[in-house]
């Protein structure tokens, strides 16, 4: 495992821990690249505060700056780090305890059916 995977995931989670940065990323995801001024018009935060957060997000590699109209810098969301963080969340979300309980129940049920029905009908469990 590369040590940098964890660093990438950490940057994503740090970025997402702040409500303004979440709002910025959500806006860029929903509406595409935008300038700090565009974002300030959409969000209840000053342009200065947005600019500060954008610098941090760019340093973390979560947005990239690109030239926009009238020499204004536009910011674009980068999805690659998000996918790394998703992989981390996937491990946490993987539930084997539930299915293994279900397997146990299924085997118990099947064994009961086998024990109580004549051999020709042993296929019958429901669902």
């Amino acid at each position, binding site marked *: 495992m*590369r040590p940098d995977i964890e660093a990438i995931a950490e940057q994503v989670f740090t970025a997402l821990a702040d409500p303004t940065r979440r709002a910025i990323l959500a806006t860029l995801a929903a509406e595409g690249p935008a300038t700090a001024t565009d974002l300030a018009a959409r969000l209840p935060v000053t342009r200065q505060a947005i600019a500060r957060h954008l610098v941090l997000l760019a340093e973390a590699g979560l947005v990239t700056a690109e030239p926009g109209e009238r020499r204004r810098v536009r910011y674009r969301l980068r999805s690659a780090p998000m996918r790394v963080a*998703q992989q981390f969340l996937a491990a946490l979300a993987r539930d084997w305890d539930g299915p293994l309980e279900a397997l146990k129940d299924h085997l118990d049920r099947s064994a009961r059916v086998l024990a109580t029905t004549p051999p020709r009908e042993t296929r019958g469990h429901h669902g």
Partner: protein
Amino acid sequence: MGFPDRIERTVELAHPPAAVWAALTTAEGLGAWFGDEAMIDLRPGGAAQLRCAGGYMVDMRVERVAEPRVFGFTWQLHELPEDDPRRTYVEFTLEPAGAGTRLTVVETGFAQLPEDACRKAYDGHTEGWSRELGELAGYLDAS
């Protein structure tokens, strides 16, 4: 290590390995406990599919079949986009334990990252939709 790559569980089942094997490797068995409906082509490289509650579908690929001891498959994490190439590997190991079975499930690969995704996660070039849309426009212009 903060990034979990491997998940392992062991359960003791009061049923012989043959019964557990059938529950793990047949469409009827898988459909009864793992999903609502299943199909499986039980050979290495064979396809399997699980339909779960809500119509959600999982595609699997059978990787290891060593009846009645080891059954392995790969599948995609549904948290990832559909075109993501990553798969985790799930392996069930069945060991006789008295009249029953000790079943171990190990899933690995959560921390894997393909070479290109790693590079993309780091370098800062801004391609993507704008380039792809440009290519589409070019293609449409040419045709």
